[in-house]
């Protein structure tokens, strides 16, 4: 099957050439300026999954912060010095002993970029986008995660103006870890919900 998002990664693909041509035209016509393009690239590169890990680790050690993160994601991110400025809303959904959340954007590649930066390539693939809603449990198995018996799988399709992030459960045996060490356990994949943080002890 064809997938233009995957092709776009190659600098020799016709899609990359098309984007360069469009960018050149926008610059020539004065719709965009070079500094604006550079600012946007810097903005994206300054965001990373480490931001999400920080939010999660704080929520694990501070229950009041956890409640604020779940009720107003943008304000809670600002509280930790992040700049969630983006037209889209930012909602954090919580995994519990009975609910496992999974995030997808079937229509394109909506992702909480203002917090986490660019999504991984697989998140944009036609394969993930179509199967995450159709057979989420099979997708989770392929990522090496089998939800325990009795856990409901809840999929969030980011179809419009909200960007979603998962607040995973704190792994057992981590009572004595510092907030920084806890943050190290939080992977990008666990923030999307295709896996969960693990602690070997």
């Amino acid at each position, binding site marked *: 099957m064809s997938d233009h998002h995957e092709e776009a990664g190659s600098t020799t693909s016709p899609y990359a050439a098309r984007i360069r041509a469009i960018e050149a035209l926008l610059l020539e016509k004065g719709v965009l300026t070079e500094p604006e393009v550079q600012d946007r690239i810097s903005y994206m590169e300054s965001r990373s999954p480490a931001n999400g890990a920080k939010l999660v680790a704080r929520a694990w050690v501070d229950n009041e912060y956890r409640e604020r993160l779940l009720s107003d994601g943008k304000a809670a991110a600002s509280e930790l010095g992040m700049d969630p400025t983006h037209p889209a809303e930012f909602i954090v959904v919580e995994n519990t002993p009975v609910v496992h959340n999974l995030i997808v954007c079937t229509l394109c590649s909506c992702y909480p970029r203002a917090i986490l930066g660019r999504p991984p390539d697989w998140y944009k693939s036609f394969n993930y986008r179509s199967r995450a809603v159709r057979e989420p449990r099979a997708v989770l198995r392929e990522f090496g995660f089998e939800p325990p018996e009795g856990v*409901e799988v809840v*999929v*969030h*399709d980011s*179809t*419009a103006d909200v960007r979603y992030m998962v607040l995973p459960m704190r792994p057992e045996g981590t009572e004595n870890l510092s907030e920084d060490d806890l943050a190290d356990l939080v992977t990008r994949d666990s923030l999307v919900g295709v896996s969960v943080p693990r602690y070997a002890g």
Partner: protein
Amino acid sequence: MTFEPGDRVRVLPAEKPGHVRTPGYLKGKSGWVESVLGEFPNPEELAYGFSGRPERPLYKVGFMQADLWDDYDGPVEDRLYADVYEHWLEPEGGTA
């Protein structure tokens, strides 16, 4: 806002050309309003350089996976949420 949390709704089975944010697999499917997300510029107009105003109410709508896919492989409790604009929803059972 026309709908409130808990209301049963159906996604319109409409075909509309161009940029729409209602995925095909939800068209004609029934679910419930989980929450009201607020009002946002209409993406179907925003995409073509218009203002998108007046802003449209956006709802978080829940669906049981078993209602979406005949052969869904998983417990009947599994759910899916999507964010759907008001003009793509009608009360379940037809327009009141």
